[in-house]
């Protein structure tokens, strides 16, 4: 794996009504993220770091959201995961 690909983290979600707001929240919180729409899948690439914020998703869906609900529609992801109640962060550990 070369440096260029290593710099990117991604998260891929199924395309459905549940993920639409999650994707919108990710797009708002990560201005550098690139959103690629495929048939039945949305893959979001971001350089270095990507964050899913509970508060941003909650604002869009109008109810309490548990970040673990993400996994129901998760296809794949890359990066080291740092998960708390408020944020789900993908990033690469750099030494």
């Amino acid at each position: 794996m070369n440096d260029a690909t290593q710099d990117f983290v991604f998260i891929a979600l199924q395309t459905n009504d549940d993920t639409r707001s999650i994707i919108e929240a990710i797009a708002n919180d990560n201005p550098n993220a690139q959103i690629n729409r495929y048939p039945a899948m949305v893959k979001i690439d971001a350089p270095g770091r990507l964050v899913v914020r509970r508060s941003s998703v909650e604002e869009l869906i109008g109810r309490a959201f548990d970040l673990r609900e993400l996994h129901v529609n998760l296809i794949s992801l890359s990066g080291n995961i740092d998960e708390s109640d408020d944020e789900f962060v993908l990033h690469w550990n750099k030494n």
Partner: protein
Amino acid sequence: MQVDIKTTSVTQLRNTFSHVARRLGSDKAASRYQEATFDLQSTANFHYRPLWQPELALYDIRRTQIEMKDWYAFRDPRQYYYGSYTMARARQQEVVEKNIEFVEKRGLLRDLSEMQRSALIFALVPLRHVEWGANLNNCYITAYGYGTAITQATMFHAMDRLGLAQYLSRIGLQLDGNRGDSLAKGHVLWLEHAAWQDLRRLVERLMVTKDWFELFVAQNLVLDGLLHPLIFQHHERRVSAEHGPALSLLTEFMTNWFNESARWVDATIKTAAAESPANEALLCGWIVDYRKAANEALAPYASAAFGHDADTALAQIDAAFETRVAKLGLEPADEAV
């Protein structure tokens, strides 16, 4: 032979309905809530005037003094449409049923002393008539209100109130061992006991309030905003301090429901007030009137249920209500006292 597997992707031409796209500003994917809300109510081509009110159309914005440029500004922060509403309530109902079963199996309320049981019947069971009144009032708002954004939410709210009335009846049945005398007794208390008459008068006054937005303020903001905290927070805390948390298991839904609905009620009032100073003045006037009326109506009930602590309890809920109204950007508080 070599087989190449290729994916073909079909992109849809339009992401949502045109009327929704016009509201969103562009044709982007809309949420179910938006698609199930925006511009659903008919606005034109009414062939006949209603016989019972020929001066107005079937759906008419003139049934309230509140004026809005866009009646679909009343977004529900909970984003309830039929699907999400029924699923949310079904989940909550499962919890309530489990709690009722728990209390039933152990006879937690049935085994209280005669005196304690009749105190609980006095404080809670007649309340089911108040909730039924709230159901009727929200049905009225749904029938005469304007725009799906608010009328669908008030219809859900009406159903919620019927549910609350039923849960209160279930508490009564827990107290009388499923015989049903507590309900009959509650009915008599509601019709005859002095402590309930002022509240009954207020509920009946709301039933004949013509302006549907005034009714929304009076019922959903003011009366509920004072009555629910008094009973399901203050009274419940008192009861569980004396007899343990059996009752709290049965009123947990009411407490959660109140906090959830308050978000929607607050958002609705805030939207109407932000529209124009004229709306704000109307809202402030109604809040002052009904806050006074509700506080007076609750006083005899509170002194019967709380004894010496009645004034403290009433003062606390009124102060909490004042803070809530101030947060909405309305300032009717000073004139009220």
